[in-house]
């Protein structure tokens, strides 16, 4: 027996029936892509093409193509890596943590958010892989494989190695979780294809659905698997950004050497991830006419999470500054004064404006329920979160211990190109996903439609 509060707004609008859900979501998959889709896909491919060119040049000539120097040995690559990993976190938060908290509003957005996680993690992984320079030897450097050096093993004490395990586990488990969710929905498309007499499509989607039938026993096991995967993903997602933050926090570089990093990075990750989910979903909603499934109410709830996480990030920035002063270590104090007033002051203040001030606008109901305002602010938040990582990484490094080594970082076309590469890949992959896979979890949405139909009786 399900109880629905009359005070809450309905999650799915437009008086949809269970049959309407299959119809509305499968239509995208069965029909031809629209002109707008082709245009967006074309643009993504152009970006991807430029990115592949710059990446090939970097792999051929080495990472000297980038703007790195002896002082600033980590810059755009690691900034982009952390940024993309962070974006991925929202998908897991929506699909796993909100499942454990039984938040039903996640049901029409979880599929797209999980897809975003997977593509974002792939984008993130390209940066450390390329930064290894000789990518083809990376297996021996990063994985504990027997080798010709008498088996000289990898260093399990290093956070960079923890990252290898964390990111690959996160990717694999997210992929499995996402795919498990897709299985019953592929079966819907298969059965519709059988009815339409489209045999090729029926065979392809049957293979994708692993011959799903939807018996009560299978559903029982399926629900148990989904719950345990959510239970496993929740600590996993928190561990991933914690470990990413330890890449910095376990070092002795002023500005990195802080114990606040793990929670601060996790909050920032969820903050930027929700902003990216909003950017993508507002486009998807328009492109595929999903206004009844992704409603203003969904957008508003996501904006509330942005206020919460944005405020945590803001407090973390202020705490860092306070502790630098309170800790009385001159190097730390200098690092923070230099962030705000040194040669990279513009990056610091861009970060502060975009991440601390702009999300506070969502306190106004008019703004957090406005699609245009949400779209603009979601992009601003992501710009801000990119600057956050840039500020942490580059401003801490560019003032080395010896003033004679002080330096600046200037990106080259190849730094920019590889960032463009990931955008091209991300949007191309997302568009392909939205065309060939059901963008909304039909089985879950159908289960909440029934409970609202009880009102009729």
């Amino acid at each position: 027996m399900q109880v629905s509060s009359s005070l809450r707004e309905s999650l799915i609008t437009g008086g949809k029936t269970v049959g309407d859900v299959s119809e509305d979501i499968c239509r995208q998959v069965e029909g031809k892509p629209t002109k707008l889709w082709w245009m967006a896909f074309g643009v993504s491919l152009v970006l991807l093409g430029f990115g592949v060119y710059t990446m090939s040049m970097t792999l051929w000539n080495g990472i000297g193509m980038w703007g790195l120097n002896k002082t600033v040995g980590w810059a755009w690559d690691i900034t982009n890596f952390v940024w993309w990993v962070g974006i991925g976190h929202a998908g897991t938060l929506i699909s796993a943590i909100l499942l454990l908290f039984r938040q039903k509003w996640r049901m029409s957005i979880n599929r797209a958010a999980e897809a975003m996680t997977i593509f974002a993690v792939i984008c993130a992984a390209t940066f450390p892989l390329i930064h290894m320079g000789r990518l083809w030897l990376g297996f021996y450097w990063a994985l504990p494989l027997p080798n010709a050096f008498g088996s000289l093993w990898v260093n399990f004490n290093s956070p960079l190695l923890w990252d290898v395990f964390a990111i690959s586990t996160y990717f694999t488990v997210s992929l499995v979780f996402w795919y498990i969710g897709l299985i019953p929905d592929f079966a819907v498309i298969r059965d519709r294809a059988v009815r339409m007499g489209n045999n090729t499509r029926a065979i392809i989607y049957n293979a994708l659905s692993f011959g799903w039938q939807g018996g009560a026993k299978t559903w029982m096991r399926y629900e148990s698997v989904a719950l345990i995967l959510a239970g496993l993903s929740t600590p996993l997602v928190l561990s991933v950004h914690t470990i990413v933050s330890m890449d910095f926090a376990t070092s002795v570089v002023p500005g990195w050497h802080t114990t606040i990093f793990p929670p601060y990075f996790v909050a920032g990750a969820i903050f930027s991830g929700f902003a990216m989910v909003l950017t993508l979903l507002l486009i998807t909603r328009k492109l595929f006419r999903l206004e009844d499934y992704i409603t203003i109410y969904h957008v508003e709830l996501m904006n509330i999470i942005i206020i919460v996480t944005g405020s945590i990030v803001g407090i973390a920035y202020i705490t860092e500054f306070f502790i630098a002063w309170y800790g009385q270590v001159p190097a730390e104090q200098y690092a923070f004064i230099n962030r705000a007033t040194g040669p990279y002051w513009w990056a610091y203040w861009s970060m502060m404006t975009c991440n601390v001030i702009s999300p506070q606008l969502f306190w106004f109901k008019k703004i957090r329920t406005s699609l245009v305002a949400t779209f603009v602010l979601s992009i601003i938040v992501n710009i801000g979160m990119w600057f956050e990582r840039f500020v942490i990484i580059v401003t801490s490094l560019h003032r080395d211990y010896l003033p004679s080594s002080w330096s600046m970082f200037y990106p080259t076309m190849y730094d920019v190109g590889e960032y463009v590469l990931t955008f091209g890949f991300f949007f191309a992959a997302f568009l392909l996903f939205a065309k060939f896979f059901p963008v909304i979890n039909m089985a879950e949405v159908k289960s909440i439609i029934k409970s609202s139909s009880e009102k009729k009786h």
Partner: protein
Amino acid sequence: MESNKNFVLGVFDDEEVLLHAVEKVRDKGVKIHEVYSPFPVHGLDEALGYKKTRLPIAAFIFGMTGTSLALIMQIWMLGYDWPMIIGGKNFASLPPFIPVTFELTVLLSALGMVATFMIVSDMKPYRWPQQFDLRSTDDKHIMAIDLATNKIAKDDIGAILKESGAQEVNDKNF
């Protein structure tokens, strides 16, 4: 699978009606082959008298396997096979091994559990399912009753299904 299997199908479109129907049909002594639904119906497994799944146990065992393998691997590699002084710390000290141990626990637990689920549910990409009614993935719940396992006459089963709220009663032969 042997040929000439005869089924009676009850078609339902409301999960509340379905849940009561399952109870009624079972009370009359009719054995239900399986109920196919487009989405998980809570309480259906209990109504059908299914035992709780043991997949959580599988997940736990796979997870513990991951924990042990990760610890054995790290302690053996850095503690015995090639000890190295890193930051003047013990060769095999536990705290830095925790992150990798945690990740491998999660990885093996998740993959092992999902593989077990796929195997016990007989899910294969090349398997074409026994489709009773194509609407069972769209918007109808299909209660399939195997005539071979029931002694009650087909027409009586049909009447029981109708009485308990089925919208349609159909035959299906394989």
